[in-house]
């Protein structure tokens, strides 16, 4: 057995038996990992020139981007990276990097890159010959910026996947569109993407086809086709493709859709590996509050009558109109409370469906005059406008609409509070994300390629909130923590807009239809310009470190500049759940609380023990575990952050099996009331027998 694995496991074992952390065991595990595993496999190069030459000649690196730079500059950049004296702070970070990210020889035997090497290559690759940006990129990445996995993993490699891996597709109610979209899913899944597909516009089970009633099979068989496509099309067998399907809660197939993830569902409707999400307009919550029935509709009727698809209208606005219109069939009536209880039951039993609060998203949508946000992606943080493609018969040209690809990156909150120039850090991150978007061309999915070219959307997010709070002596969920995230996210929003404006100014180009956006007419800035000066808790201000507090006057000035020069990016911010990338950097994930002080991480390939960053025996009480955080406090914290994010935040809720479906419903309702846009998983901790019997025996 590998001694480093044993040592790493011993950290948890000792912690469980004695309650004390023995971090030196983890450090020893990391040391032994290098001695026994990394160093013996690391290919030795005489110098940097030789390393680059070898890796290009052997076809590991692309040569085109290397040739954009002078070799002296490249050497200088390597030195710059190595001068940081980077050390992996945990066994988790080291093993995750060398297992999954570092370039290896084709037979997997030799390791060809160290951490710094990867950073330099990402910088050179994304900067595309701009030496100033390449330098800034190295600084940003060595300090506080982390590109998402596909970018970090694939940059500069000759045999590589795509730099982006998050897509949203919209299916139309025709066989042409269904077939075309399944084709897209196969393609995107092959590239390593997680794909979201909106099924809301498909006619439900039993609807007419060519006027003959009871012919349509509804959305579930389509979902099954998608599920099979994703499991067939994987990335060289390394990991299965993943996808999510969304459906509006007023769609006539909703009941089967909700039950489809239950472990005991009928095999004909059970979705084993495909994720599900539901779209909830506010009218649903209002009807539920008044204990009313809801009426389910068919998108087929809506399109015939209004010439619009179900996702293209606001159900909240149209609900009573639909009820009064005799040409719209009232397919089924369901008690809203009972239906929502079924949703909660399914979430307890499977973690699904995700929920998107339709009106919370669209009311504050900065591009609301361009179109509606109709769905989300696999992690519920991407919320962007889409336009349906018209897929015709093979002898006619298709009319492509707009779908979504998204490239993400995250700022480490703790390190960001220490950098000298926060605005510059955000600007560097925005520029790197911009280049990823410009370098991406998903040629086999024209609606995605088109949107990418026109919209330039990116998703900058954050991670390590809980870790940072612990270093500042602030309890997660406290008033101080809410103030902190409020101030931090406002600054992030401000500087990302500023950066987008600068880029638009430099390039003389804005995103498509900028002039119709809330940024152009100034509405977006109103609440910022009219705000009272923030009265943050002194602890929160201290925790902000070098991150500036943004004043109303600053916003006013920025609003003017945006009006004049426009914005380059249609969407800027999105907070992803940050799995692997937060492990490499030894960060806590996203803005969520840690799930365990000493976490057991089961990836598909190994089990690793991960003590939370900065955890010591003295600050352990600050690392309150997610299941012990008051759910309402957690929602308040996310709501504070959400105000400053134009897209969404991936929010997981944590419950124990002592909770009832009603208690779960209540926190979702609270989240909806607080303006939260989406809820990702609900995770459940099963109380172990020892816990539940101990107090009684």
């Amino acid at each position, binding site marked *: *057995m*590998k001694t480093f*694995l*044993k040592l790493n*496991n*011993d950290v*948890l*074992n*000792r912690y*469980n038996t004695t309650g004390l952390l023995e971090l030196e065991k983890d450090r020893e595990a990391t040391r032994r990992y290098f001695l026994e595993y990394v160093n013996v496999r690391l290919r030795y190069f005489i110098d940097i020139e030789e390393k680059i030459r070898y890796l290009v000649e052997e076809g590991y690196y692309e040569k085109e981007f290397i040739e954009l730079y002078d070799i002296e500059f490249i050497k200088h950049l390597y030195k710059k990276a190595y001068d940081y004296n980077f050390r992996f702070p945990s066994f988790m970070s080291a093993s995750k990097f060398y297992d999954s990210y570092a370039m290896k020889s084709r037979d997997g035997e030799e390791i060809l890159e160290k951490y710094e090497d990867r950073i330099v290559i990402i910088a050179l690759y994304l900067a595309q010959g701009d030496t100033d940006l390449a330098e800034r990129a190295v600084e940003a990445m060595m300090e506080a910026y982390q590109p998402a996995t596909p970018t970090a993993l694939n940059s500069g490699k000759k045999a590589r996947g795509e730099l982006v891996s998050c897509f949203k597709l919209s299916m139309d109610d025709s066989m042409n569109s269904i077939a075309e979209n399944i084709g897209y899913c196969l393609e995107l899944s092959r590239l390593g993407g997680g794909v979201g597909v909106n099924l809301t516009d498909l006619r439900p089970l039993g609807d007419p086809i060519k006027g003959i009633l009871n012919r349509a099979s509804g959305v579930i068989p389509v979902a099954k086709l998608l599920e099979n496509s994703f499991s067939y099309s994987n990335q060289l067998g390394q*990991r299965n493709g*993943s996808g999510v399907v969304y459906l509006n809660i007023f769609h006539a197939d909703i009941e089967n859709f909700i039950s489809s993830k239950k*472990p005991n569902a009928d095999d004909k409707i059970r979705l084993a590996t495909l*994720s599900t999400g539901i779209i909830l307009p506010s009218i649903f919550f209002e009807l539920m*509050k008044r*204990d009313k029935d809801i009426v389910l509709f068919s998108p087929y009727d809506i399109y015939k009558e209004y010439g619009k698809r179900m996702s293209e209208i606001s159900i909240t606005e149209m609900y009573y109109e639909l009820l009064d219109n005799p040409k719209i069939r009232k397919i089924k009536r369901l008690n809203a*409370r*009972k239906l*929502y*209880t079924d949703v*909660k*039951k399914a*979430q*307890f*039993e*499977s973690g699904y469906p995700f929920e998107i609060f339709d009106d919370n998203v669209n009311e504050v949508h900065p591009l609301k005059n361009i179109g509606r946000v109709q769905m989300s992606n*696999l992690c519920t943080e991407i919320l962007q406008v889409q336009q349906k493609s018209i897929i015709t018969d093979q002898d006619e040209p298709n009319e492509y609409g707009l779908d979504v690809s998204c490239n993400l990156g995250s700022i480490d909150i703790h390190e960001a509070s220490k950098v000298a120039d926060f605005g510059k850090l955000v600007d560097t991150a925005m520029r790197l994300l911009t280049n990823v978007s410009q370098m991406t061309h998903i040629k086999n999915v024209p609606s995605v390629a088109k949107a990418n070219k026109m919209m330039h959307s990116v998703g900058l997010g954050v991670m390590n909130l809980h870790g940072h709070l612990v270093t500042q002596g602030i309890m997660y969920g406290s008033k101080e923590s809410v103030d902190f995230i409020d101030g931090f996210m406002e600054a992030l929003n401000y500087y990302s807009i500023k950066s987008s404006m600068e880029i638009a100014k430099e390039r003389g180009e804005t995103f498509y239809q900028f002039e119709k956006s809330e940024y152009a007419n100034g509405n977006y800035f109103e609440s910022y310009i009219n705000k009272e000066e923030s009265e943050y808790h002194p602890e929160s201000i201290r925790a902000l470190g070098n991150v500036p507090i943004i004043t109303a006057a600053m916003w006013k000035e920025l609003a003017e500049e945006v009006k004049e020069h426009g914005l380059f990016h249609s969407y800027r911010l999105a907070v992803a*759940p940050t*799995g*692997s990338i937060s492990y490499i950097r030894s960060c806590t994930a996203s803005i969520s609380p840690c*799930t*365990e002080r000493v976490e*057991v*991480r*089961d*990836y*598909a*390939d*190994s*089990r690793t023990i991960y003590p939370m960053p900065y955890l010591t025996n003295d600050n352990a009480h600050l690392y309150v575990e997610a299941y012990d955080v008051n759910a*309402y406090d957690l929602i308040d914290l996310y709501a504070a952050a959400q105000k400053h994010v134009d897209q969404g935040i991936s929010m997981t809720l944590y419950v124990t099996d*002592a*909770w*009832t*479906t*009603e208690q779960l*419903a*209540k926190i979702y*309702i*609270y989240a909806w*009331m607080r303006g939260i846009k989406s809820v990702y998983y609900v*995770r*459940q*901790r*099963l109380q172990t*027998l*020892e816990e*539940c*019997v101990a107090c*009684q025996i």
Partner: protein
Amino acid sequence: MSNLVYEAVNWNKPTSELAQIFWDQQWKQIWFPEEIAVSKDVKQWQSFEHQETYKKVFAGLTLLDTVQTNIGMNQIATYATDLQEKAVFTVFGAFEAIHAKSYSYIFTTLCTNAEIDELFEWVKKNEYLQYKANKIGDIYNAIEEGNPESLWKAMFSSVMLESFLFYSGFFYPLYLGGQGILRNSAEVISLILRDESIHGVAVGFFAQNLFKQFSKEKQDELKVWGYELLLDLYQNEMSYTDDVYAETGLSPDVKAYVRYNANKALMNVGFDAMFPEEEVNPIVMNGIRNEGSTYDFFSQKGSSYAKAKMAPITDDTFDFKNRI
């Protein structure tokens, strides 16, 4: 026709302390082997070095779970006097059946039919395996109506089986799974373990209640009987471990783990531990944690979802007076 008076089980009135809790906990964690993608292990399996040991470990576990389904829980359920406890034992028996079937599910996925037939033949021939099955089976079959002592002995044996004898087998998949080898089969085992740990605690708890009713002399006599049985099974288990784990170099680790669990089994029935504390391989220890570990969406299904507790949404659900 006989003229007995049949009594209906009345769950409205607790007759047994904790029966309801064990019942709820067991149903909350219902699972089926088909939910776990064991087929993802196939690729690793093809180049796995100690296939023989792995197969035998699982074959041995299949036999123990078969005995526990067909005889153990059935017999205990038949002779237990409290109607609620009877129901709990019957439910436990059903889960044992799921366990026994889940090993077959793993075999079917990893092995050829000829290999499977050969394994089931091996089970019939392996002396140590047959020894423990016979030893425990005899005690189960010796329960008599109106003889609480015989029932207690059966419960004691049941705890020995579930909290102690299974673990020489559980060791291997946990040990490998923790290192990223055949992880999905390990996932099945961790789900089985989650059940077995309730069975051990529950049957042990009911056995302790029964034990309290015996006279001091009887208790002393049964204690001696119990430790003797444990020692007997322990000797056999050591030989079984050497036999099955030959060539893997793991025997000393497995044995330490078996002793650790023997102590746990004794504590479940309210007896003092017998073996001195010793270090158990941390990878295996981490494999038996019950909480359900962290998964990302690209990974396989986690073991942490369970049945929901239903409660209706009411007007109060919309009341956040204390909050807003």
